[in-house]
């Protein structure tokens, strides 16, 4: 048995590797840029150069801190035309447009020059210098402002355009705008933009004339050393010892990184929330089994009786009630001063908190009323399934010879079913038990939201809503791990319940 357990634990490793890889791939490919999300509250705002320069630097530093300036994986399968440095382009829309251009023309070195010329043009268009403002005051025509805006609009638009006809048309339109500047006497605009526009035009012409689309048909395998996945697994220090790590120690050392939303370590958040979800799940499982097993056994023993039929009806009625409805019903009944106000409505403890010097018994006394209603909601829905499973299993067992022998010996019903029959009927129940483990990690979003329990449910919901991928990946990996543990525990319990089950090779 021990060998079997060890073997199973060893199998955890490749399984968890695959789970973590899937979780990582999902997080990487999800839309949105975490750095932009974190800076969403700060706009380009007032056009202050200092603030914009500072913000760009802050974003770059954060990107570096989160490891988002690295290639994604150890290798990537691409085409010969695509460079191995495309991951360095931070703006996703630009990157996508460049990929389209590469697919069309296949000559990265020329596309790169064209892209640089567009960036220079865009940056110049966004600057509205003091000289421009002074000029505006001298020129009474308001047309200049309109021209400037159209100009900026077209410059930005070029960075997302890959169709050759459209690109040329937009560059022509920009050159026409420059001409209009000239007519307004805005010669300094001309000086700034004419050369940039010519450069854009020439570099794009070079892209077209030096097309090497054949390169897009030849696959290429690009290898990278240090990459995001490696960093995620091993941290940003020495991969073996972990020495020198600055921002991240790696998942293998229990560091799932920092939450994008709260900037707190993910393990700290999970460490705070998980005990609530796990303890509620554990208590509800215990209650569910304590209630369901006797009901199932009695229903089997008194098959067709009033108890059997009525218990089925009641339990399935309960099963059909959604948990949020049941939760609200319980709240409005037991926490409502208009009906019965005997239990609290929300939270896990009194508003004033639990005194630090309170004894364990006192803490328990202050906390248990808050858990009654959530516990009922966690438990009731599984009663029907468990009791029916128990009933079916017990009915199968009760028709066997040894049960008839026990009856013939004159043993009491309880003795027959609980001592002789139950153990043989436990296998399906144990199978269900295995699924409890991952549920304990995920918590119940609805119930924890309803009752204000600071468990994993609200944390996962917030993580999904805010695209907090370190948190999502951590929960995903942890759930996978707990599923493996659950199945292992189930296997062990099978062997305990039924000695005929053996995992040794002999």
């Amino acid at each position, binding site marked *: 048995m021990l060998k079997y357990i060890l073997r199973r634990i060893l199998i955890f490793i490749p399984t968890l590797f695959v789970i973590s890889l899937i979780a990582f791939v999902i997080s990487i490919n999800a839309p949105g840029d975490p750095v932009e999300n974190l800076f969403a509250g700060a706009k380009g705002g007032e056009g202050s150069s*200092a603030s914009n320069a500072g913000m760009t630097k802050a974003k770059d530093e954060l990107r570096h801190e989160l490891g988002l300036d690295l290639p994604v994986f150890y290798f990537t399968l691409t085409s010969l035309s695509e460079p191995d440095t495309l991951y360095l382009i931070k703006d996703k829309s630009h990157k996508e447009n460049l990929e389209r251009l590469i697919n069309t023309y296949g000559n990265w070195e020329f596309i790169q020059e064209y892209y640089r010329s567009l960036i220079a043009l865009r940056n110049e*268009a966004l600057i509205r210098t003091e000289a421009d403002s002074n000029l505006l005051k001298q020129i009474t025509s308001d047309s200049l*402002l309109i021209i400037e805006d159209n100009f900026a609009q077209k410059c930005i638009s070029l960075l997302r355009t890959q169709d050759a006809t459209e690109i040329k048309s937009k560059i022509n339109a920009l050159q026409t705008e420059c001409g209009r500047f000239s007519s307004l006497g805005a010669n300094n605009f001309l000086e700034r933009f004419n050369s940039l526009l010519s450069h854009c035009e020439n570099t794009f012409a070079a892209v077209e004339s030096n097309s090497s689309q054949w390169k897009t048909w030849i696959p290429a395998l690009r290898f990278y050393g240090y990459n995001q996945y490696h960093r995620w697994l091993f941290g940003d220090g020495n991969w073996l010892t972990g020495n020198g790590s600055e921002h991240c120690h790696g998942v293998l050392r229990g560091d799932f990184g920092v939450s994008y939303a709260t900037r707190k370590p993910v393990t700290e958040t999970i460490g705070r929330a998980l005990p609530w979800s796990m303890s509620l799940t554990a208590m509800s499982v215990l209650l569910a089994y304590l209630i369901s097993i006797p009901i199932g056994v009695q229903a089997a023993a008194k098959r067709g009786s009033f108890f059997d039929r009525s218990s089925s009806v009641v339990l399935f009625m309960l099963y059909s009630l959604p948990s949020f409805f049941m939760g609200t019903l319980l709240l409005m009944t037991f926490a409502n001063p208009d009906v019965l106000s005997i239990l609290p409505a929300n939270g896990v403890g009194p508003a004033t908190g639990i005194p630090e010097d309170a004894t364990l018994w006192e803490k328990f006394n202050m906390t248990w009323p808050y858990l009654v209603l959530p516990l009922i909601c966690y438990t009731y829905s599984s009663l029907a399934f468990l009791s029916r499973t128990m009933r079916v299993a017990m009915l199968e067992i009760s028709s066997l010879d040894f049960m008839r022998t026990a009856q013939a010996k004159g043993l009491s019903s309880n003795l027959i079913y609980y001592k002789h029959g139950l153990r043989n009927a436990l296998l399906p129940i144990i199978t269900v038990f295995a699924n409890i483990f991952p549920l304990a990690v995920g918590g119940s979003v609805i119930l924890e939201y309803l009752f204000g329990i600071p468990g994993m449910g609200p944390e996962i919901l917030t993580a999904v809503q805010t695209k907090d991928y370190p948190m999502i990946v951590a929960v995903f990996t942890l759930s996978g791990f707990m599923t493996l543990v659950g199945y292992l525990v189930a296997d062990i319990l099978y062997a305990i319940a039924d000695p005929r089950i053996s995992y040794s090779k002999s």
Partner: protein
Amino acid sequence: MTMKNQFATGLFALSITAFLASCSDTPEGKFTDGKTEGTDSASNDVRYILNKKADKWQDDWSKENVVVYHWRGEPDNLHPTNGASNPRRMIQDYTQRFLLNIDLQTLELRPDLVTKMPDVSEDGLTYTYELRSDVKWDDGSPLSVDDVIFTMKAQTCPQTNNPAYKALFEFTKTVEKDPSAPNKFKVVFNKRFLYNIAMFGDIAIMQEKFHDKDGVLKKYTIEQFLDPEFAKTQHPDLEAWGKEFNDPKYGRDINFLNGLGPYKVTAWEDKSRMELTRKKAHWTQTMSNPGYYDVAYPEKIICRVITDENAIALELKNQTIDVSSWISTHGLFELRKDSLFNRNFHSAFVYNFDWQYMGFNMKPEAVNRTPFFTDKNVRRAIAHLVPCDEMNQTYLDGQAVRMSSAVTPTRKDVFDPSLKPLAYDIEKAKQLLDAAGWKDTDGDNVRDKMINGKKVKFEFELMIMTGNVAGANMAKDIKESLYKAGVIANIRSLEFVTFYQQLPMHEFDMYFGAWSGSAFPEDYKQIWHSEQWANGGSNYVGFGTPESDKLVDSIRVQLVDSLRHPMERKLMSIIYDEQPYVFLFMVPRKVAIHKRFDNANMFWEKPGVYLPALKLWAPGVVINTTN
């Protein structure tokens, strides 16, 4: 509290709003719509609701001098510089102090840590402040000008992760001590700017000794920090300081929270509760005549996170919450049917500065989208097709206040009542669409138009945020109404983060939005200047005419109210004419305060309540504010 940065933080009112009028103290158990002193109305200038003390103390009221406040979400963090949420600001008001702050009753700026409002030089560029001499940090050391200078340096330092605040210092030149007096200092600006005073209502003063033990920032000047070239250079000591200062512990760990306010955070259970405890021997406790904003009557303030509507109602009924400014409209209506609730709580629908709208993409060519809304007539037509009054009745219980332009009626100095909301008028809308060239040429009941040689149907995408139930319902009504005029709106629901990523990239045709406002003089640049369209600012829709840009630029440098307000009204009339938005509603806040507290005032300025002033008036209980 300034409204310098109107972040797109997705302050959607999920529920409804109502109309505030007043909430008179009523005969026990009954609720009537009366007016009392301090009540908001169109005819008087008072900007808050004064609730009179209850006539009689009830036996089942708690005599504990603890205020339990309910909110739906806690602060992102309490870091003095690196955060931006509204709950954070509320806690800062109780744990920090500012040079200036807003008077919730008059909605004017008032001196807080300074003796009076600053003296302003003739050119409007130099502001001289004098610190109060009675202010002390928790360690007993006095507040000094060094702390103020450090605060400004920390805010402007390129290493600090506070992009939301850096923009406040756009025109700051320097800060210097006044040699004539140790408590005086001058702040010098490059340009006249509306926020040159108001910015100090947003910046909590930090203790230099606490955040810069090694005196790193003393080696640098604020001029250096404001120089964009400086940000490109390497300074290891500054980077080390920045790394420590930006550490999240200064925003989440209660052992690292420091401030001049009368309360300190003594417990913070994530997503559950936050506890503020009144400090012992706080400097305000030695004042002989403390003002409204210097008192701290409750011994503790506990903020509880409750998100479920039923739970909120039950907690109020059970009197386990004392104050809430997060009740839904329907929730408050239901609660008011309960005589016990009315006996126990003051409640009201309170005006504020938040409003909802739908934004058009006025410059879609930049992102290769169809130019549906580039024509002003089309935008006006769509506005005429939105059944606002019906939606108000159906989803908002008739309590919302229609918006006509970009200021709420609560901005009395700027609001122009002559700008009427556009009426629901399908025929008028059809005429406008016809005039704009959108006609049904192929008889399929959907208008179309030739654009760049291609026939384009008037079928666009209306973006809403997932979870905005009222918005989703309204979107369906709008869709139905638009179809009557031959326009198809396809509703696209996006979750919060994705939604707000699409906006600065202009990847939308039309979207539901909301702005959170404030009493503060508004800098319209971020939302209404054409510059803020191209550079990723909050002008998502691309509004801006040469005239409006000039007005925006002029408004932000005009410090005299009587000269600035007419310009603001002119700007509003241009916005009204251009209709870059369909202006929807102002969303009154629903507030309840337990009657066991006196000073139960309800304010227009968020969060609508001021908890330290709530004074328990239980018979036989003496409130001792000196611990």
